């Protein structure tokens, strides 16, 4: 579920980059101090932030193909907003990217190197579970100590 949220977040970020790369080029050609450029840089920063966030809990080989959905969004924006012609070959490209992203989306988003370590946990749920596991592990010796202390007394009783 977190992966799905992340993907929608990424696609949102990429939609923003999509619009900038258009505005950005326009801005460079027309004028450097164009308000579009400022907006473009803001969007680029937003994309970079979401990309870094995704990289913090998912593999590079998971995040990178997912960001390529941005190309698909760019093509769709070009087709339906800018009314550009999208050739059959490009539709095939869109289909290939979508298929590729669908392929990884079904798999795990991170390689577990240290499953018990909270900072390498793939998502919030797993992190919470790991923290819980740590808490349980921390309490466990206390419990066993209690049990050890308790058991003889009960035996004595």
């Amino acid at each position: 579920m977190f992966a799905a949220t992340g993907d929608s977040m990424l696609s949102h970020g990429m939609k923003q980059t999509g619009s900038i790369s258009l505005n950005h080029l326009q801005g460079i050609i027309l004028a450097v101090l164009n308000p579009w450029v400022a907006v473009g840089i803001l969007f680029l920063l937003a994309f970079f932030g979401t990309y870094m966030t995704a990289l913090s809990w998912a593999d590079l080989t998971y995040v990178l193909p997912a960001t390529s959905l941005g190309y698909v969004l760019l093509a769709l924006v070009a087709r339906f907003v800018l009314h550009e012609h999208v050739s059959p070959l490009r539709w095939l490209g869109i289909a290939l990217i979508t298929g590729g992203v669908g392929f990884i989306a079904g798999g795990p988003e991170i390689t577990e190197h240290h499953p018990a370590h909270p900072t390498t946990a793939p998502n919030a749920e797993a992190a919470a579970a790991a923290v819980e596991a740590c808490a349980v592990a921390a309490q466990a010796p206390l419990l066993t100590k209690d049990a050890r202390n308790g058991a003889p007394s009960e035996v004595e009783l």
Partner: protein
Amino acid sequence: MRAVYTWSAILAIVFASVVGDVLLARAMKQVGDVGALWRRAGLGMVIGRTLGNPNFLFGVTAMAVAFFSLLFALSWGDVSLVAPAAASLTFIGNAVAAKIFLHERVDRRRWIAASLVAAGVALLAG
């Protein structure tokens, strides 16, 4: 001769952006789950820890190198060759580099995904 220059620049783009991506990915793995860190220590901590990470700084530098290589490549070759070639080779290069340097488990599913996406990007950008 122009083709040699163009392809050298394309390879430079691919190399620099793969290095950049791997370093950035490594940096963010060191920073840890941004969402969890933000809730625990605030946004300032997230930004501080990210910007203070050497891998992050080298990664951004590599990305800048990739960008300037792109400018060089575009000055020698057509955008319809440079853009798709650089983008799709970067996907393949990243899959290899992530397996070797980040020890990610790049299984058959991910190889297929990387190849499909690389082919798709080549078609779209071309």
